[in-house]
């Protein structure tokens, strides 16, 4: 049996995705990190950005996380984020509009949020 790890992607107000995966790639403050089954227990701070999950069925799930944490122990991986969305849920056109609006309003936080969403859509 191929080794698997159980992934829980949770946002502050809901559970976004959970399932089995073979590889999870996320961006921590000190760089991109790939976690495979059997990885050493890990706790890290996430940067805003896309997270890529390779599911055991061979599919790929991409999610945009806005800050948060990654924690891994006993082949269980949790991704915690205040805001997290699957790339499939993101409306690219709306994110683009939001980006333009944020740029003209000089709202740095909104601009970053929109950028992260667009990056996640691009990875998909």
């Amino acid at each position, binding site marked *: 049996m191929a080794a698997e790890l159980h992934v*829980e992607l*949770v*946002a*502050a*107000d*809901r*559970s976004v995705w959970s399932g089995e995966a073979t590889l999870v790639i996320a961006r*921590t*403050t*000190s760089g991109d*990190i790939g976690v495979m089954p059997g990885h*050493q*227990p*890990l*706790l*890290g*701070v996430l940067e805003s950005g896309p997270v890529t999950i390779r599911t055991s069925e061979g599919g790929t799930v991409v999610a945009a996380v806005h800050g*948060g*944490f*990654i*924690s891994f*122990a*006993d082949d269980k991986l*949790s991704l*915690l984020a*205040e805001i997290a969305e699957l790339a499939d849920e993101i409306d690219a056109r709306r994110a683009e509009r939001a980006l333009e609006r944020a740029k003209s309003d000089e709202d740095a936080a909104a601009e970053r949020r929109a950028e992260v969403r667009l990056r996640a859509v691009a990875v998909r």
Partner: protein
Amino acid sequence: MGAQLRVYKRRIKSVTATKKITKAMEMIAASRVVKAQRKVQSSTPYATELTRAVTAVATGANDKHPLTTEAENPTRAAVLLLASDRGLAGAFNSNAIKAAEQLIKRLEGAGREVDVYAVGRRGIAHFNFRERKLAGSWAGFTDEPTYADAKKIGEPLIEAIEKATAEGGVDELHIVYTEFVSMMTQTAVEARLLPLSLDEVAKEAGESDTLRPLYDFEPSAEDVLDALLPRYVESRIYNALLQSSASKHAATRRAMKSATDNAGELINNLSRLANAARQAEITQEISEIVGGTAALADATAGSDK
């Protein structure tokens, strides 16, 4: 219609109208409780995972973080009270306020200066009336709090606890909210958020005895803890806000249910009184007619002779 009867009829009508309103409020509150409970549930995974992570870092890291170590002699404390914006919820607000006042008194008795933060118009009004200066106050979202609201509340609190005590910072952070036990029971509880007591946190995560793995921290244990703790406080505040709103709706439902029941009883009593008044009126009319006929008969009998 006699005057008495008219008065009863009018009162029945007005009580019926009130009953309709309270019945509607009861049903609205009942549907909101369910919604609020669902929100509490969907926020639980994040809270548990976060709690687990905090326990892991705090026990794994050797260095002492200001947010997890107790000050040697704490002199200032912050109390956050979660009340609601609107009343009509029985003793909901007064219970929460009473719990907060007791906590404040106890802290002040222990020689601490207390900064009060209040959420919800009812709580704010209580302290304003007693002319206690509030360090911070928020209102307008207690019916349906969002995570952004919790963030807004958490920000100045975390700032205050990070500041040195001499510069107006606080050593401790307490929170008073109403715990949702069941549809029938809601209790005002107080909890100390910071400094973190690890035993309690571990108990909450339900894994006090299990051996925790040795984590690899990215970038470092201290940085992770720095980033984790504010999120932890926010998530606790968010959870308290949600529980408080569920409790408020449950309390409203109960208060409105008893108001509806009372109105029903009142209507029953009033209809009985109205019936009695109507009956008395009829009896009086009959006796008047009978009396009148008798008098008329006597008069004609006299004139005949």
